[in-house]
């Protein structure tokens, strides 16, 4: 299996742990990732409010490069916003004659053209549908031993396009977590919005969503995410009283996979997670949740009675 890899800007910046753990986990599963040469920003959620055409031209540039340089490969985008922006080009530009012509006219300025032949895939889609849960289970060295994890899907991987999971009741990440030996907790916050870039423009508003999500995650050993913006919003303000004073590690699904595959903490960059403190790291290292009997003096258990 081989994919054209689109890391996206965040994964080169504040979310390097996502990039590094995706590459490590994919390598462990025998999947080859080839970076799209010369890729640039997809516009995130900032292009749409500024320019209708840029909103399509920026992601289309990357698909055009993949089409030209890595023909036949699907694009794999771990970041939710990147995934949606790239997918949007296939859904809204390809098949719309006028718009497609305009986008290609813009791309023509740098000698590019997008015909519309590249499949766009989210990492969760690839894990569940291309790789499958059995090969993931076979790769496990040190399973998560009943770690209580809340699966946080966020918005843009399932909405508005219902591609690989039910946006109302998503299960794909829960299934991967179960395969890793974790215990996904039932909650109704998995597809709630974390505030996205509203956390920068109007933090007092976004904080309500963050507080509600973190509150509902009480009793979890960790929250698993597949989006750098969700991860940042959920962990960066845990010190802020407006976020409700809930402390829980917010980990990338691929970091948890790496740990279950026997990779050491440094190779999944656990030290980059701001929500990780000493006791949480110790808990992860010793799989503290394996010993569920009461009275063992385990810190993770003592936290939530």
């Amino acid at each position, binding site marked *: 299996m081989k994919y054209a890899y689109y890391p996206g*800007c*965040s994964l*080169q*910046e*504040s979310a*390097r742990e996502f990039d590094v753990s995706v590459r490590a986990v994919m390598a462990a599963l025998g999947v080859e990732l080839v970076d799209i040469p*010369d*890729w*640039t*920003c997809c*516009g*995130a*959620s*900032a*292009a*749409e*409010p*500024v*320019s*209708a*055409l*840029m*909103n399509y*031209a*920026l992601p289309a*540039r990357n698909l055009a490069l993949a089409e030209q340089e890595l023909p036949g490969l699907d694009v794999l985008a771990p970041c939710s916003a990147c995934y949606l922006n790239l997918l949007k080009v296939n859904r809204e530009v390809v098949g719309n004659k006028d718009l497609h012509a*305009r986008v290609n*006219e*813009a*791309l*023509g*300025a*740098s000698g590019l053209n997008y015909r519309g032949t590249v499949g766009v895939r989210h990492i969760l889609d690839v894990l569940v549908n291309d790789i499958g849960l059995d090969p993931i289970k076979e790769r496990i060295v040190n399973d998560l031993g009943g770690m209580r994890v809340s699966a946080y899907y966020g*918005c*843009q991987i399932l*909405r*508005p396009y219902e591609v690989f999971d039910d*946006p*109302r009741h998503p299960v794909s990440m829960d299934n991967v977590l179960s395969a890793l030996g974790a215990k996904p907790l039932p909650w109704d916050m998995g597809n*709630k*919005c974390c*505030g*996205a*870039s*509203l956390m*920068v*423009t*109007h*933090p007092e*508003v*976004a904080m*309500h*969503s963050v507080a509600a999500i973190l509150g509902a995650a009480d009793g979890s050993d960790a929250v698993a995410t597949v989006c750098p913006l969700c991860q940042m919003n959920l962990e*960066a*303000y845990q*010190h802020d009283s407006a976020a409700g004073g809930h402390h829980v590690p917010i980990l990338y699904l691929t970091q948890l996979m790496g740990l279950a595959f026997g990779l050491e903490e440094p190779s999944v960059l656990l*030290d*980059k*997670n*701001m929500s990780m403190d000493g006791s949480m790291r110790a808990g992860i290292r010793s799989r503290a949740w394996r010993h569920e009997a009461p009275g063992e003096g385990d810190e993770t258990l003592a936290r939530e009675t």
Partner: protein
Amino acid sequence: MNQTQAHAWSPDAVTREILEELRGEIGACMQCGTCTASCPNGFAMDITPRQMWRMVQFGMLDRILESKTFWMCSSCYMCTLRCPRGLKLTRAMGALKRLARQRGTWKIRKNSAFYDAFMENVEKYGRVQETSLMPGYFLKSRDPLLPLHYLPLGVRMMRAGKLHPPSSAQKGRLKELFAKVREMEEES
């Protein structure tokens, strides 16, 4: 002083075009209120999404531009998922942001400062460089207290090794594309 109202009587061509496009998209709204009920940020909006679509149908440009409703949209697509008429509501919220930005008053420029700073960063570096994005945003917002708000976070990010000096690997890579799009959007 409300600057928006003063301009609202002679919409320029671009404003009219965005408004027309919006009216086309929102025409089928039956005012059921599902979008309002679905919105996680509705509590912070001064006009509910349902009311906003009514105003779009009636072309009430001045009232629309006074509102902060669309700036509170976090693009979560919940309304788009649930609208029984299948209307592209998140996209419409984006178009409303563009509409307001087109008519830019000071209040509006403050609201769009982050998006503008982001796009400038992309134009310059090709890939977003977070360490230079935030100072760019602070400058555009013209709010001297804003950097203070982000200081504790900046310190924690620095400690976790999350901040990196801007990379120039893709610098200037998007210059032609930005120039071309600007030219195309000006003449349309």
